[in-house]
């Protein structure tokens, strides 16, 4: 297949996917629509993390912390003056807080990306892991801004958000759940397109060069400092937007909203989705959202004996299943589900190629 044909197929698939996302709420229950909006939120965060880890080769075990920065930015802006005596009176509408959440998290990412320049591989994993673990207690320390352990309720003023009453948009009335779904997915699709644009050109090439060999990248004139920091910033901005949406969807934030487990989930998501590819991340997001639910045995039904289902539903059971699945996945599919699809695609196309010869 020529690159041109591949590109056309890519566009058609993307358009098909957008159409699918647009009509899906008509076929599923209102509650399901809300669940699927979380998939979009994870997708946004995964797109960001993949730019950093998949394309630039910098492991981050702490992206939940950048989501927390975004989430708290949204929450503080929405709660406004009444709660904290802050500079913004009356609170801000949820939608408008999202760009700011992305910006603040992105700046934090740039700030962290700078010291991170000197860390590589395991050390970076370690430092980012420490960030994620230290996040909740830092949040508790600055109680006057973050509400401490209690957190912040986002719905002090219902008119600021579309998530508790019906929303009229483009002549249609949407239920709160459908509104959340369309909000999250619209942003996710834009985020996807932006990631694609960033990665296809010069910047994306520089990222990949840094990942494949720092030495080779430097000797070809790629500035490590610039591109690594940039990757951190962009990636954190994505996480910030996702965090803001997460806060809106859950209607409150507290230190437990963004636990260390979230950071782990995100890393798992990009590995499942296949590092260094974009479309696989959709599977990654689905996996990350549904595996914990699936691990509770909710959808397994008659596949397994009742006794086992019962056991996995005890507290801790889902985590056991999750951990084991994670390890097995690394044994069986080192390149993730996305890698598997790429592999199958290669097999098919290469065979066709040789036949036509």
């Amino acid at each position, binding site marked *: 297949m020529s690159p041109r044909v591949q590109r056309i197929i890519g566009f058609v698939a993307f358009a098909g996917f957008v159409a699918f996302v647009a009509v899906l709420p008509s076929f599923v229950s209102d509650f399901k629509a809300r669940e699927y909006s979380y998939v979009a939120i994870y997708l946004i965060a995964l797109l960001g993390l993949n730019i950093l*880890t998949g394309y630039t080769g910098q*492991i981050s*075990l702490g992206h939940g912390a950048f989501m927390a920065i975004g989430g708290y930015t949204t929450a503080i802006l929405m709660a406004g003056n009444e709660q904290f005596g802050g500079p913004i009176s009356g609170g801000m509408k949820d939608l408008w807080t999202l760009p700011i959440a992305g910006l603040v998290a992105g700046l934090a990412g740039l700030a962290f990306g700078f*010291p991170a320049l*000197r*860390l590589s*591989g*395991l*050390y970076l*994993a*370690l*430092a980012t*892991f*420490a*960030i994620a*673990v*230290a996040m909740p*207690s*830092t949040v*508790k*320390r600055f109680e006057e801004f973050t509400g401490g352990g209690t957190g912040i309720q986002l719905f002090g003023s219902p008119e600021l958000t579309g998530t508790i009453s019906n929303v009229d948009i483009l002549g249609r009335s949407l239920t709160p759940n459908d509104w959340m779904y369309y909000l999250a997915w619209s942003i996710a699709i834009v985020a996807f397109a932006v990631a694609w644009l960033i990665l296809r050109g010069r910047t994306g090439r520089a990222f990949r060069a840094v990942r494949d060999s720092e*030495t080779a990248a430097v000797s070809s004139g790629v500035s490590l400092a610039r591109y690594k920091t940039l990757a951190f910033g962009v990636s954190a901005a994505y996480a910030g937007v996702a965090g803001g949406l997460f806060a809106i969807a859950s209607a409150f934030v507290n230190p437990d909203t963004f636990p*260390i*487990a979230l950071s*782990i989930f995100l*890393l*798992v998501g990009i*590995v499942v989705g296949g*590092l260094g590819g974009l479309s696989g991340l959709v599977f990654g997001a689905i996996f990350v959202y549904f595996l914990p639910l699936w691990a509770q045995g909710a959808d397994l039904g008659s596949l397994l004996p009742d006794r086992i289902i019962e*056991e996995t539903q*005890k*507290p*801790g*059971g*889902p*985590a*056991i*299943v*999750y*951990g*084991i*699945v*994670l*390890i097995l996945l*690394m*044994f069986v599919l*080192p390149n993730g589900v996305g890698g598997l699809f790429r592999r199958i695609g290669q097999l098919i196309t290469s065979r066709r190629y040789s036949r036509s010869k």
Partner: protein
Amino acid sequence: MLAAAFSDFMQQVVSGLASGGIYALLALALVIIHRSTGVINFAQGEMALLSTYIAWTLTFNHGWSYWPAFVATLAISFAGGIGIHRVVIRPVERGSLLRIVIVTIGLLVAINGFVVWQWSGEPQQLQSPFGTETYDIGGVVVSAHDIGTIAVAVGIVLLLWGLFQFTKVGLALRATAVNPEEARLVGVRVTWMLALGWGLAALLGAVAGMLTAPTVGLDPNMMAAVLIYAFAAAVLGGVDSPIGAVVGGLLIGVLLNLLSYLSQYGAFDWFTEELRLPMALLVILGVLLVRPQGIFGRPAVKRV
């Protein structure tokens, strides 16, 4: 007033040394694994947690007395560490960094889940083998548990040093860490040495966990913070340096206690208990920026 402040200061130092000894043990476990396998084991804290629960269930549910349970736990942990290496780590050892990191994270999640599943999330009490008495040494009040903790930590470190320095197994372990290929050529069973390293690390973790539980209480989140302090200790001392891990652990323990002490007397009054973990993070970042090889490490030289 000054005398009181001084004895208070010394008390903080002693209890800092005690918690620092615990961090040192766990840091040592991380260093042993990092030296031999080049892996940072994110599941190290949870492995220690599991061991501690085993000790607790032996004493509480099965009526064992402390020291037999202690020894049995060490044996089980040692075997468990070897088992984990053979079953879970070996298949991915030669794979990419990310794969190994994720496998140890998977272990972290699974072991923590298992502990909650088996023993519920309820906090439990593990008794201290050293009792609850306190001694007054020249105006400085120290608890028996702190002294015992320091003694056990020092003892274990000396034993380990002896093992590495004076036995044939220790020589083989060091050879494996320095150069696995050449070690294999001279007849060292490298795979077993790596597994042995994991066994020793699990054993160290078990001691650290059993010494932690009496003061902070046994619950499934007990080791999360200790692991970060141990990371900080290992980075501070140099991730490839066993001596560094011990010194780093003690320094971290004392540093954190002194910050709380000073904040009581007005200096560093921004410091609160919540900032202990973020401080450890700052230490990690600071060391990695200023002296990435740590106090005792050698700078890594990469051949291009």
